[in-house]
């Protein structure tokens, strides 16, 4: 694990830095459903690697933020910690005991210590239960506070702790009688009633109104101080993560691409994806009108993740070893066709009819099949002349016209790994910060468009 356990609040330093939760090389795969016919004839169903080799530790009293877009695997990772999805590989330990593969009856007692706050307060309380019952049920299942009377007292205490005071006003209310903020307070009360150590908070404030968000985030901060809670805070909102977290892990397509102390990440973002995310946060300061370079496109389909660094197709500073492939040429052409007149589009798109099998890949190249290879070569040469700064061209070693089509020789692909950056507490998974180890690609290619 490349990151150091640090940033603990002082009272927890007593536990001599032993991590509370330790995640090692965690993998969570989801099988894609295929249709009945494909299953009969043995068609292979793909898998989505929702979490793809993640290492992460949570020190006692620490707040670690998992930040990423939808589809980055951040929620899946959080759920795996609670045993709500079963990992396909790797390990999660809680105070040294393994959680992966633990059968449900053995897991259940541990859930007292590992609790979750969900995103949607309107959907996470049972509408047919009173607040008192919803919280009391958790206590009953875990056989805490034996009788109904002492249970009711414990529920009232939890309610008052989260600000739903006097508890007598709320304990017999149904979920429909509460406002959004009150519901989220009740959900938090349910989580803390069991005396947990770790809380996985999955977007706890994103469904709330602006003026309520600060109140709930303030409550979570108070609870951390008063109860010594450890949080895994899952969010796509960088502003609240900056305020609330000690460390931040930025996730993209199932992998952590950058992790480090919150101040370092926000003041010196290193990974191009982190930079892009930070630049895209809408800021309520209209004087800040910096022209931003936004990455094109969206988070790709995880069932067919890009090769090499999975951010390379969107990365504005990608270069030769980042993982160029035939699919990227197709994206380039589609981008070109959004800007050309209709007749030109019709003419050019006729050259490459076969959209699905656009290019066949080999180790070091791609073949784009076409009936008129010369025209396609001219098209690609023209595109390259028009936009020479396009990062893709740094990865194209050679472009040869073949009788079957156009053959591209691509630079060797190197998948970046999460490694510490010298002189900082941050780890980054990007070739800009670590020598990719390919001959001729020395680390001086930190200048993005240097190679060609």
């Amino acid at each position, binding site marked *: 694990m490349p990151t150091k356990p640090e940033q603990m609040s002082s009272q927890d330093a007593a536990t001599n830095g032993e991590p509370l939760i330790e995640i090692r090389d965690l993998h969570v795969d989801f099988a894609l459903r295929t249709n009945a016919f494909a299953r009969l004839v043995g068609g292979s169903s793909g898998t989505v690697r929702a979490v793809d080799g993640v290492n992460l530790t949570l020190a006692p009293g620490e707040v670690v933020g998992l930040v990423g*877009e*939808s589809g980055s695997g951040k929620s899946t990772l959080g759920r795996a910690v609670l045993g709500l999805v079963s990992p396909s590989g790797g390990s999660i330990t809680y105070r040294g005991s393994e959680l992966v593969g633990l059968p449900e009856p053995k897991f259940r007692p541990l859930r007292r210590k590992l609790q979750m706050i969900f995103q949607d307060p309107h959907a996470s309380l049972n509408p047919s239960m009173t607040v008192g019952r919803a919280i009391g049920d958790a206590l009953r299942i875990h056989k805490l506070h034996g009788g109904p009377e002492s249970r009711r007292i414990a529920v009232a205490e939890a309610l008052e702790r989260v*600000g*739903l*005071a006097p508890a007598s*006003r*709320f304990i017999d209310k149904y979920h429909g009688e509460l*406002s*959004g*903020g*009150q519901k989220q*307070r009740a959900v938090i009360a349910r989580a803390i009633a069991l005396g947990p150590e770790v809380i996985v908070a999955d977007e706890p404030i994103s469904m709330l*109104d*602006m*003026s*309520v*968000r*600060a*109140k709930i*985030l*303030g409550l979570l*901060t108070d609870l951390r101080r008063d109860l010594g809670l450890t949080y895994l805070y899952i969010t*796509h*909102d*960088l*502003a*609240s993560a*900056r*305020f609330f977290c000690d460390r931040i892990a930025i996730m993209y397509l199932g992998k952590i691409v950058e992790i480090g102390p919150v101040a370092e990440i*926000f003041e010196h973002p290193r990974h191009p994806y982190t930079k*892009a*995310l*930070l*630049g*895209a*946060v*809408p*800021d*309520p*300061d*209209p*004087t*800040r009108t910096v022209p*931003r370079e*936004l*990455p094109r496109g*969206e*988070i790709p389909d995880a069932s067919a993740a890009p090769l090499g660094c999975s951010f390379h197709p969107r990365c504005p500073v990608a270069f030769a070893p980042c993982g160029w492939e035939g699919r990227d040429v197709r994206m380039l052409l*589609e*981008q070109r*066709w*959004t*800007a050309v007149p*209709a007749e030109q*589009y019709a003419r050019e*798109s006729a050259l490459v009819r076969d*959209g699905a099998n656009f290019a066949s890949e080999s180790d070091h190249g791609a073949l784009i099949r076409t009936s008129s290879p010369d025209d396609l070569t001219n098209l690609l040469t023209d595109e390259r002349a028009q936009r020479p700064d396009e990062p893709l061209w740094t990865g194209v070693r050679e472009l040869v016209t073949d009788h079957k089509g156009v053959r591209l020789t691509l630079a060797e692909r190197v998948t970046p790994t999460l490694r510490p950056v010298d002189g900082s507490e941050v780890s980054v998974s990007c070739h800009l910060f670590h020598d990719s180890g390919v001959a001729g690609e020395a680390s001086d290619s930190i200048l993005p468009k240097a190679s060609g």
Partner: protein
Amino acid sequence: MSEPVIEVENLRVWYSGSGGPVRAVDGVDFVLRPGEVLGLVGESGCGKSTLGRGLMGLLPPGAAVGGTIRFDGQSLLEEPVKVRNRNRGSGIGLIFQEPMTRLDPLMRVSDHFDEALKRHEKRLSKKEREIRALDSLRALGIPPTRYRNYPHEFSGGMRQRIMIALALALRPKFIIADEPTTALDVLVEAQILRILAEIGEKFSTAILLITHNLGIIAEACDRVAVMYAGRIVEQGPVRDVFASPAHPYTRELLRSTISLTTKELHSIPGAPPDLVQPPPGCNFHPRCPSAMLICARTPPPPRDVGAQRVECWLHETVAPQDAQPLTPLEVLVADEA
């Protein structure tokens, strides 16, 4: 200055409720000129979406509408339903919040465009319709290769682009975008906001952007209108309003927004009022840190302060006995929204 595209005066939308009418929109005035982007910001329940729907004429039965909406020389509320239906789409376009559910899953993207154009632009031939649709999609960065795909083949951001392209294909003079980026990721949100800001310039379409996020207003809008409990309490150029908010609600809302520079959390005590029985005087007075005695008695008149228009007694000359601070009612934490 060019002629306004839409002028709204004293617009009221009341719903029938069990305890009496719900005054969702209660006397709203604003003007939008070609190419201008007006941001309408407020918390849930302040009436901002109702206002958008009221302008479109898409209110549920049981809603009563009063006041004037002048659009393109017509007084919309007085026109027969037929005229209003004709305007919807071709005159006033709407972009919804959830792109995932607003396209028909059984229709190709091409069919969506074909249907809308057939309905509103009867003179266009099939070929012309396709050209118009492809132009519109291309302007939003959707490759023409995807024209015949079904909605499920697109990601959320692409679907929202298609929705915007669909609205633009009819070349409306005015577009209402109701929380267009709420369901989208940060990077895609930034892309869509940039597109909306460009539409204003490129096609001189006026846009009403409804959102609860002040950051979005700062990024994409020229002017902002802050709505609280059915009324616009302050409006003006974004820079002016954000730099020196004239209404205490605007100020408090800006302070309680969590941004990258937040060092300390701040929130507004209390919750928005019940719109069936709004408080007497200024709607915000029970939560206002600067409230005076007069605020609890008489609603403040609108007043121009520089380029901003604001409804607050702080900008009026108030007799000394009325200017005494109002003792705030004790607010329990639990009563906060």
